[in-house]
């Protein structure tokens, strides 16, 4: 059954970094605003109002849009169709987004500290050293 799921355990605090991370993982049709409506392509998909929308069919999300709802806390929470969880970016949408977001966080921290960055990838782990 196709229905939109809200991932409340995955939150992104900074909108600018979130959008940059989405671009990093290949989302190039990002809609932003307030109270944007996610598409309802199947009867089971309830209406969702969000702040960021990745349109259907842009990164393997065959069944619906991907949205980010702004919570009262200011955090952004992803909403994805149940059937797209295993399809968007070959089922790695959330993990790739978290990785890209965290890399953006590191860059922002380094910029604030006026530090230098040294990045390596070893055995499935990105290692970043910031000196300041």
């Amino acid at each position: 059954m196709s229905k939109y799921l809200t991932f409340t355990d995955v939150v992104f605090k900074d909108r600018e970094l979130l959008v940059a991370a989405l671009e990093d993982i290949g989302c190039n049709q990002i809609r932003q605003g307030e109270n944007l409506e996610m598409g309802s392509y199947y009867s089971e998909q309830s209406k969702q109002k969000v702040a960021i929308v990745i349109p259907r069919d842009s990164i393997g999300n065959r069944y619906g849009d991907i949205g980010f709802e702004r919570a009262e806390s200011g955090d952004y929470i992803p909403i994805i169709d149940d059937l797209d969880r295993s399809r968007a970016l070959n089922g790695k949408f959330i993990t790739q987004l978290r990785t890209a977001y965290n890399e953006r966080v590191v860059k922002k921290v380094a910029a604030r500290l006026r530090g230098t960055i040294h990045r390596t990838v070893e055995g499935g782990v990105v290692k970043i050293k910031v000196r300041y």
Partner: protein
Amino acid sequence: MPEINFTIDIQTGEMEMKVEGIKGPRCVDVTKIVTELIGAPEREENTNEYFERASVRPKVQNKKNG
């Protein structure tokens, strides 16, 4: 020179960080910048350096009574 070592697990997207080269609780300033952007950590441990005194101690002015 102070440094922060970040490790990001590509399989899960989870990140760990370790602050080195800062004596005393000043490293909290750095972690505050990070938590503003990613939220509170699941787990937090202070290293031995946290409990060491910084080489420059803040000047403390005695309060005058009355």
